[in-house]
């Protein structure tokens, strides 16, 4: 019983702390108009390190029933605790959009963030986006990917980073290709990275990296591959959503 009282007290204190915080923030916004739908403009499916800012802001747009952008509608962003938005709520600008900078929570995994607006009948319209937080191991894997793998496994070519993908007779699997890669076990992936393609009766164009990368490097690469797979891998950890 005493413990319960203590917890209640704790929550009450937490509550006051939170309410103090929101008081000091911006005054509550009043929407001038109401939209019918909310759509993503950009910023979904990004990677960032745990606790860090997404490299690009998230931009969402409110449309009316005809699909035309609505300026002056209120958008609120919410997500699991630990995720912060700057701003957390705003009115859409002249092009019907709101841009917010998002920092992900401290745990590696997928974060569901939700942007919501209110339509004419005061019903909540919601858009859910997913962002990916990389922990230490996945970040290390990401660096290794950039150094050793990305040139062939990523078909996107830029002037600064020319892709080798198109030059290969047997096309490598991009690491985001969840449909294929999720079917391979960690042991399969370890074997193919360590001993090269022929280890799984695949192309010799995939060289053996076992003498170049350490065991923990290879584990880090696999953790990265699991983290970025789309559709998500079962091994990627939980999805953090608002509770």
């Amino acid at each position, binding site marked *: 019983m005493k413990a319960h009282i203590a917890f209640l007290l704790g929550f009450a204190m937490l509550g006051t702390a939170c309410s103090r915080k929101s008081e000091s923030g911006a005054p509550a916004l009043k929407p001038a108009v109401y939209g019918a739908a909310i759509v993503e403009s950009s910023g979904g499916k990004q990677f960032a*390190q745990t*606790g860090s800012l997404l490299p690009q802001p998230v931009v969402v747009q409110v449309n009316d029933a005809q699909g035309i952008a609505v300026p002056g509608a209120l958008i609120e962003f919410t997500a699991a605790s630990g995720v912060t938005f700057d701003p957390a709520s705003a009115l859409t600008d002249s092009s019907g959009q709101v841009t917010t900078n998002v920092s992900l929570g401290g745990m590696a995994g997928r974060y569901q963030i939700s942007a919501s607006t209110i339509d004419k009948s005061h019903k909540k319209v919601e858009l859910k986006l997913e962002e990916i937080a990389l922990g230490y191991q996945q970040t290390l894997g990401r660096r290794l990917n950039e150094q*050793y793998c990305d040139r062939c496994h990523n078909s996107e070519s830029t002037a*600064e980073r020319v892709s*080798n993908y198109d030059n290969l007779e047997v096309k490598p699997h991009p690491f985001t290709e969840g449909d294929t890669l999720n079917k391979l076990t960690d042991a399969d992936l370890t074997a193919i990275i360590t001993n090269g393609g022929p280890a799984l009766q695949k192309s*010799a164009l995939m060289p053996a990296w076992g003498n170049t990368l350490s065991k923990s490097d290879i584990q880090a690469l696999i953790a990265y591959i699991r983290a970025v797979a789309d559709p998500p891998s079962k091994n990627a*950890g*939980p999805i953090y959503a608002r509770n």
Partner: protein
Amino acid sequence: MKEKLTSLWQKLFGDSVRSFGVVSVIFLVSIAIAPAKNFFSEWRHYQHGYLSLIRNRSEANTLQRHFQGGIQQIWLPELGVVDRCTSCHVGLKEASLTDVATQPYRKHPVIPHNLDQFGCTTCHRGQGAATTVAEAHNSTLAWEQPILPARYVESSCGECHRGELRGTPQLNQGRTLLAREGCLHCHIVKLSDGSTMKPTDDPPSLSHVADKTTREWIFAWLKDPQAYASTSTMPNFKLSDDDARDISAFLIANSTPLPGDAVQLSAKATPDPAAGASLYGESFCASCHAVQNAAGNMVGGDVGPELTRVGNKVKPEWLQAWLRNPRTYDAETAMPHYRFNDAQVATLSGFLLGKSDSDFLANVHLEAATPEQIAHGKRLVSDYGCASCHEIAGIKKPENFAPELSRIGSKPVTQLIFLPGMQHTLPDYISGKIKNPRAFSPGLKMPQYSFTPAQIDALTTALLALNERSYSLPPSLAVAGRTETNYQPAGRAGKLMTDLACFSCHRISGHGGDMAPDLTWEGSSVQRDWLVQFFKNPGTLRPALIRRMPRFNLTDSEASELTDYIMTVYQNPTVDRDSMPLSGYSQGQIELGKQLFYGKYSCQGCHIVDTKTDKGYIGPTLTHVGSRLTAAWIYQWMKNPQSLRPGTAEPNRAMSDEDARALTAFLMSQKGGEKSSTPAKASGHKAHTEEVAKR
């Protein structure tokens, strides 16, 4: 009332038996308080929660076996760690709890360290000995050691790891920014190993600035450096018009002309955009200099200044002198001395002067400076500490101009002054100060930088790593970073290498840049004839790279002098150049090597030997490799590429001696047919130049 009290007293303490009984009860209850408090403690509550969480899992028995009740503690006297965090965070070491999202039961993500050897507070800060959430984490915001927010956690890696770490990009970026954005010119940062962090940027001397530019440009630049070049690292000092006027007056009046700093070429600057653009491309100016294109993207490197509006800045006669030999104006510059002829200087300067924005200086009109204005400008230059970064004749570099930051990461919160509405924590203070320094007091001299939010986080991370703990941790834990030597080649070749600024891009014996290959073992690697030819006309080795070796227009004697030095001095002790012949391998060996190349090792994935069939684009083209590299180098490279060039992307295939020998024979047979490949190479080069020009 009084009666009631009296009767109560009588009831309780009327006789000795009653009073004994009552006192005993009170005594018992008070004794029971401590165990009760213990029984209802937070950690016990969380441990119960954990037990009910694991009860229904398939691996419940294993988890149950690992579970230990009661207060847990990691005690590491030499690190000053007494961490009881594991009393509530019970599942930290349970690998199978990957799907658990609720705290405090999450497993700890994989890191290269063992929790039992480092504890928790070493990385996360907080009060390790505390056994309640509030006390351990951050109950009051004035707590000296609250939990470090996850976004700054890499700072803790930096307490021991002084060099770059692959897994901590944010810390690496912060340290790079600290060194190259000018912070270290004013703030001293001493590290726990006794060294002092050195700036990596090189702000220009202003002692002869009137040769280079006009007072109007200086005025506009001082008012808003990023308006001239958005990538500029010069911060905005938020000067008033009068202050900018007076500083520009002083800098011009204080400048002395430098002999040879202005040439009058007979050839006029030709504004021929096609010829200029192609010379700009061929000379690989874009490897170091960026230009903003019509779409607003920066194209080019960030070693030298951005050139988008360079025509607004430089005087034509200065630019021509600079292009002819930059070392006249700045002996230490990272810019190579290209040895352009007069026509090339005229073409290139015409092209660069055309990069201007007619609006940039349109509204700057300055009257002739008065002596008072000049004197005031001089005072301002001292006040703002301009000489911390720039050499200015007659002004001494100020010492201790700004607070030392060696231990900023442990600065007590009680010593900080926060802005209203700000969280009272050290990370918030540091990032707030970087974001908007003058907000903390209008009189502060720290200028306004134009960092992105991510850069501010990175800088804050790097600064938080500069703390007491980095001094107090056992020295055996410290991991040194890569140290920059002050290697300087000797003699005439050494002078030539300085003149060509080889070290701006190449690294040799631990000194120099990272843009181009490390040349420490170059003499063991390449053949003499090839190197001479390469100096005279650097061809394309790696088609995928956009930064390439430029042509410096060397004379024959310069090229052979450099080659001789490299061939003699830059030798790898494990590669004996003469141990394997350059040609004369048996056809059988060559054929075996070819099979290995295309089959077992599938080298064509990254390399091109036959331009008709191979497409590999990542490694160097190997059509001429037999006349470029030595056989001994190729053999050793096959055996272990990382032993020759650490970090190279070529995988180590642990080849047998036979395989390595056969591949060496095959590669040495690729001498580059004169007819088929030379034109291909030349046209490839030209195509690239055009591409650069287009961009």
